[in-house]
């Protein structure tokens, strides 16, 4: 038996183990749907296209297992599913990114701080980096579509809070912000704790609104917008 055959046998075994009743026709459908889509699909989108009673989560698991060691893998990004080329084959496919996409060191650090500390205000980012932020940094990250204004902190001046977008998760191949690399270590070391460290609220990066955060309303009256500008200045 060739090693390919062995590989396939492993898949077979895994598929049988993971979902003994994975309907082969349904598997083909999920495979086709995910292969055809240009964007990641969530379970709901898949379910609407599948016959009634199809076990979308089970099918996804079976497919993920089947493709685990293949040239194409089934990844979970931003809570959705997408076939992507295997990361170890990057050397084969890598394309040079256009120069303009190269972010400054400040922008990269700011993005990381927003990702790990969200929801986070500009002042908090500046406290961590120990330097005032140029306005352009936030603008660039917003323009790429990796960060967004997610709310306002219920503190004087009601500064806006920043967080990452689904586009960020898709770009970096993350299932959710809870899957950020090294998140647990940072949390355990207390580095994600509130600023200053004597504070008692512990913000975890989360898409959910924080306890002292209001949702962002772009149509808020002028006065409130004024306070944003104060924050940004």
């Amino acid at each position, binding site marked *: 038996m060739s090693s390919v055959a062995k590989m396939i046998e492993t898949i077979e075994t895994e598929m049988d183990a993971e979902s003994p009743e994975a309907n082969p026709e349904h598997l083909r459908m999920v495979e086709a749907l995910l*292969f*055809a*889509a*240009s964007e990641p699909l969530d379970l709901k989108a898949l379910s609407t296209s599948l016959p009634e009673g199809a076990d979308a989560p089970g099918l996804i698991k079976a497919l993920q297992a089947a493709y685990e060691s293949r040239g194409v893998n089934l*990844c979970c990004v931003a809570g959705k599913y*997408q*076939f*992507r*080329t*295997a*990361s170890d084959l*990057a050397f084969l*496919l*890598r*394309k040079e*990114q256009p120069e303009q996409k190269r972010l*400054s*060191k*400040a922008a*990269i*650090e700011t*993005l*990381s*701080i927003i*990702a*790990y500390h969200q929801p986070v205000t500009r002042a908090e980012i500046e406290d*961590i*980096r*120990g*330097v*005032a932020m*140029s*306005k*352009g*940094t936030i*603008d*660039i990250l917003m323009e790429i579509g990796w960060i967004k204004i997610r709310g306002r902190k219920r503190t004087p001046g009601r500064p806006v809070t920043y967080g990452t977008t689904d586009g960020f998760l*898709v*770009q*970096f*191949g*993350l299932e959710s912000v809870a899957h*950020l*690399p*090294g*998140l647990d*270590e*940072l949390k355990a*070391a207390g*580095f994600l704790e509130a600023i*200053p*460290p004597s504070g008692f609220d512990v913000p975890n990066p989360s898409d959910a609104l924080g306890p002292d955060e209001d949702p962002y309303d772009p149509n808020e009256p002028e006065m409130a917008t004024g306070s944003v500008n104060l924050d940004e200045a």
Partner: protein
Amino acid sequence: MTAADQAENFDEFQSTAIYADDQALTVQVDGFEGPLDLLLTLARNQKVDIAKISILKLADQYLEFIESAKKLNLELAADYLVMAAWLAYLKSRLVLPQEKGSDGEPSADEMATRLRWRLQRLDAMRAASTRLMGRERLDRDVFGRGDPEPVNVIKLRTYKDTMYDLLTAYATDRARRLGGQAYRPQMAPVLAIEEARERLERMLGKIADWSALTGLLPFEWTGGARRRSAVASTLLACLEMARDGKVELQQMAPFAEIFVRDGQRAADMTTPSPISGAPTPGA
């Protein structure tokens, strides 16, 4: 590149220009992202765990660094100088015997711990950032389907038109078309007096001397009810015109034929009456 970016890079350039020329302390020419970044670099150079770093030593290094920059006449961004002042203050408090912290002001040790913690945190965030950016990125390292097959949206068109709409359309459309004629003012079988007079005025000068009134009726008004109306209207028109002196009229007997002639012509010459022995016109 935005102006803000340039400004940021300019800051980097300034701090990059700071060299430590003593104590074998060489700072990489990477540029610093502010005083905390410079402190972190200096702390790394101590080659100790940042958690156990000597803040006193670090403050000394920082202050020396700033001094050497001043000697080189390098303009330093304000926040580097603020940090220098703060570190000088911290150093002075650290070397002095610890006084009991009064009204909430943190002790020198607490301040040092806080600084150490901030450096650790910045260091940790830098590491996390490196890990994050090191991930396989979509369209750079990993790729989605290069030629996705789009979903064809087929519009299932249904019509809301009902029997009501159909019948309304039929009834109103046809009623409008046919009704258009029904509402046109009906040609009443009456010859307006104005019309009769206008007609007569046009005919004056063309009609024979003493024409019979009934012979002057419009051709299409010569039968039935229409004739009666035409006779009445023409007679009334004649009477009006006789009053104005435009025509002269004659009638031999009640209900007999009425004769009309141009009043102007009557003035010019005396024409015999069509009926001998007729009373003088205008009587």
